[in-house]
């Protein structure tokens, strides 16, 4: 998915862009130590056979990786909320022979956000840490990733996430109702015309969520449905792409749709793709030509002045949906941890004005072109 790719790349640059336009110092900073070693990162090639649960774990040989959980929650009072939990892993250097337990080989970043229309904008928090000393890390062979008390890990047949943010706490379990949905060609998902620009990518749609949400010191039990993306890559975004739009929808009929497009400098389609799993479990992969994103309405952020097309018409193969946000203001300022601002929020999928599903929409590169 798209999580936001740059996450991983920008990760070490943490804090970097906060005031990057004022910075007298180098902006070459992140790239140069990596450039020489890029070829040493594990490449994403077609033909790799994803296996579970092994591939649910971390792939430390790749440059970036993320586990991206998004979904809708039903609160006892009847309101609907959106939530997002992301763990990023970024590998800094491959030649690092420093025997120190603190050697910054892998950097982990976690984001958590809550979309509450009553609050009107996102509440979010983040963590950054180098892997090591047991305080932060990502296990191989099974899903287990954590930064201090923020954890996402496999429990029995499902998963559990515990997030203790500044303004809220999540303690959610996720139960799979469907097998993993391999994106692209058996999990090999291209992001551009260059075959090296690709990721390994699978999704778990229609996850059943249960657990407790704590806000203002009060815990509420919640239920809902979620979507997990797990994606790893050594070269995610093509140099000619400037950002992307991504959507994942849990359809009301039990089906699932994922669609994304990479945008070029003119804002047009640079690349696109997706997949559709029908209620009966038949999956269809969507090619570049199958996915069309058409903006319907823009919303301009009062904080950054950035305009985001928060309402879309999306056609994916034979399917077509209107997309409406849970609330307009789901702009996400992660400059403190990953150095960018984007829009990531809960959306409704409608067909001819009637609810057809609920999902998450991510739009990057509108604030400034995504840089890798």
């Amino acid at each position: 998915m798209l999580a936001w790719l740059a996450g991983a790349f920008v990760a070490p640059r943490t804090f970097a862009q906060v005031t990057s336009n004022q910075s007298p110092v180098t902006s070459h900073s992140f790239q140069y130590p990596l450039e020489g070693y890029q070829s040493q990162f594990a490449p994403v090639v077609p033909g790799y056979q994803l296996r579970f649960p092994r591939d649910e774990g971390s792939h430390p040989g790749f440059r970036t990786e993320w586990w991206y959980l998004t979904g809708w929650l039903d609160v006892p009072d009847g309101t609907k909320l959106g939530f997002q939990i992301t763990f990023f892993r970024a590998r800094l250097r491959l030649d690092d022979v420093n025997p120190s337990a603190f050697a910054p080989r892998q950097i982990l970043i976690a984001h958590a956000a809550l979309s509450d229309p009553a609050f009107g904008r996102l509440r979010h928090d983040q963590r950054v840490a180098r892997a090591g000393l047991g305080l932060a890390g990502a296990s191989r062979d099974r899903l287990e990733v954590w930064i201090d008390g923020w954890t996402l890990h496999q429990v029995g047949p499902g998963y559990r996430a515990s997030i203790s943010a500044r303004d809220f706490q999540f303690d959610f379990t996720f139960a799979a109702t469907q097998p993993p949905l391999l994106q692209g060609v058996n999990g090999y998902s291209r992001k551009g015309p260059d075959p090296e620009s690709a990721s390994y990518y699978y999704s778990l749609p229609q996850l059943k969520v249960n657990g407790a949400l704590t806000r203002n010191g009060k815990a509420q039990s919640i239920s809902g449905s979620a979507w997990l993306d797990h994606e790893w890559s050594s070269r995610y975004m093509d140099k000619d792409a400037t950002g992307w739009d991504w959507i994942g929808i849990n359809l009301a009929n039990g089906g699932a749709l994922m669609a994304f497009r990479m945008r070029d400098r003119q804002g047009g389609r640079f690349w696109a793709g997706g997949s559709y799993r029908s209620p009966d479990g038949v999956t269809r992969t969507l090619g570049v030509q199958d996915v069309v994103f058409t903006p319907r309405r823009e919303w301009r952020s009062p904080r950054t002045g950035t305009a985001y097309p928060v309402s879309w018409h999306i056609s994916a193969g034979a399917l077509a949906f209107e997309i409406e946000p849970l609330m307009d203001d789901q702009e996400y300022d992660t400059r403190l941890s990953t150095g960018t601002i984007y829009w990531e929020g809960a959306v409704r999928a409608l067909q001819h004005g009637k609810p057809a599903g609920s999902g998450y929409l991510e739009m990057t590169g509108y604030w400034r072109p995504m840089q890798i």
Partner: protein
Amino acid sequence: MMRAATLRALFHAASAGALHDNPGRFFLALLGIALGVSLGVAVHLINASALNEFSLAVRGLTGKVDLVIRGPRAGFAEELYPKVARLPQVQAVSPAVEIDVPLSGSSDRLKLIGIDPFRMAMIQPALLAGMQNQITDLLDPDAVLLSHAAADWLGMKAGDTLRAYVGTTSIELKVAGLLPPSAYRQRLGVMDIASAQWRLARLGRLNRIDLRLHPGVDIAAFRHDLATLLPAGVIVTTPDVEVERSASVSRAYRLNLDMLALVALFTGAFLVYSTQVLSVLRRRTHFALLRVTGLTRLALVRLLVAEGALMGVAGSTLGVVLGYGVAAAMLKHFGTDLGAGYFDAISPALHVEPGALALFWLLGIAFCVLGATLPAIEAGRRAPALALKAKDEEESFKKQRAMPYGMALIGFGLACTQAPALTGLPLLGYLAIALILLGTILILPWLVAVLLPRLPAPRFPPALLATAQLKASPRHVAISITAIVTSFSLMVAMLIMVGSFRNSLDHWLTRVLPADLYLRAARGGETGFFTSEEQARIAGTPGVASVRFLRSQNLLLGPDRPPISLLARPVDAGAAHHTLPLTGPSRVPRADEPPPVWVSEIAADLFQYHVGDHIILPIGGQAMRFTVAGIWRDYARQTGAAIIDRDLYIRITGDTLANDAALWLAAGASLQQTRQALRERLRGADGIDIAETREIRATSLAIFDRTFAITYALEIVAVLIGLFGVSVSFSAQALARRREFGVLRHVGMTRREIGIMLGCEGIWVAGLGVGVGLALGWVISLILIHVINRQSFHWSMDLHLPWLALAGLAAALVAAASATAVWSGRRAMDRSVLSAVREDW
């Protein structure tokens, strides 16, 4: 209205006239006060700036932290960090490695801090936000980011190479950039924690963990619980205590400087007193006339006090301005160090506390008013009729009412010397000096009255006259003597104290430097060491008969105490008094007792250790029991030190590294050749420092002299002010005795003979003053040595009287006083003294 106008007119008539009459003397007094105030202001400003900078710097290091876990120089095992980070009360945690590294190519060292920027961001977001893209640069294993102070000091910029010693070899770090100016104020470099552990040979070790707790956690209770989790010698403390502890090291030194400035101010006030005495004498007929024409006694006193106040305002203002200028210039050109080395890693900015400036300004005025009040009361008390006749009243002075008070003050002062330090400062010691000084001044008239009749009556007529004159005017003698006693006693006290200190240091250096050659892995810093292999090579060098290696670490014994040094070296418990400068008996622990430790006097004072005590020292993360086998004198490590046997140290810690080596040469081996051989055998180890004993001695004494340079400067100023006082009081006498000179001329004495007479008077007076001053100075020096120094710095010294210097100074002072007397008399005689005889009628 009327009153005010009258006063103003009076002032013009009386005071302004006097000013016109003798502007030089007036300005001298003004200058005296100005000097005293300016000294106080300058010393205070420099110290306040240093302290402010220091505290800002320390705060910059600790940030918005609730608690700080701190280990000794050797640090603690990094496993503590995840353990602490997982505690439920902890919200954010930031580990750090802190090391002073010796820089190659110089004798300087630089503090390097290894941080985890991601962790630090949780605790100090502002600092990290300022670092922007540098986080990425920082993760490079060779990268170091320098503070602006460090970059300026080293003359380095981004892209330069910083070379530092680890062990005896040099490593290269790349200056990846400068920290934001607001980040750290002191000279330091920041590295990534992983790079610091690796490149600076600290793998697995941390020195500090900063903690922020969840809101609502009881910090004190948590701190208490946390302390039980920590290894021995690792402490948990609050940032405030960190700042306080850092400042406390220099607190006594700062107080001592402030006290010296006060002494100067006091001497300045005495100058004002002398000037006013003189000027009242000069104007006595004016005042008498004013009194006769209706001016009340109170109004006259007010007028004279107002004069003093005015002088005070002018002098104080000038002093504050002057002091400010001096402080600014000192800070710009010399830094905040003031010679003692407490503040050498920070770059100062003048920090002005208006309250303190106002205090010094008011203090100057207060001293002036005080100096002017005594003569004013005298002038007011004088009966106008007598004053008109210009007849001096020796009789009022003969009552000696002050004597019992003086005795009481001296007694009280002596009692104060027995008191312990207050809050670690020798406040009562200073009070004792002030009381004894004041008491002596009060009993001086009585002392003079007792001593004068015992003066021998010489044959030589002018000398005989001089003796007779002095015997007849004990009041004048007392005033003159006061000036001499005050300034000379302080000078003597300082001379004896500094002389004793230097002498004791010299002896101490002889004791602690018994070998022929000394080797150090690096000049200062914490990363210099000799490996076992290098130690073997040193020991096997041709010409070396025996070697003693020393490992130096430090230990934290309490949160509010600076760390003490731990020195591990071979010591033969039975013969410790041969190798250590013990201050008392040594005691070999019995077989059933813990192993011996020899603690320095400072450590013994600070932690109340006594010979025979069983104490606990946290060595290598374990609480080890030791028996205090002896207490030794240490002038080198101001925060305390403890010596244990190196074999024992190695058994406890497994650390076989050494920092220093003492080498004894084989018979017939030459120093030069052995040095050369050592250099060759340690080729590649370019960080080592080889010094002969005499070089170390010379350097140590040079450092001592530099440390006391500021003290000497203050002392000279105080003495100069004192000499002004002598001159003023002799002038006053000469002026009062114009009629007498006239009479003497009438009866046939030549001017030369009068000059000789005055010279003799000067010699007698100065001799008396110097005698009393010597005695008083000796008493004060004892207080300085045994109370002030002991309580301030916890080191003892042996009394050493620099007789030659004292005798020379005494002679010089007597000569100067005598010359001043002659000169003052000459001035008085320049007028037509012959006609002065008629002034009475």
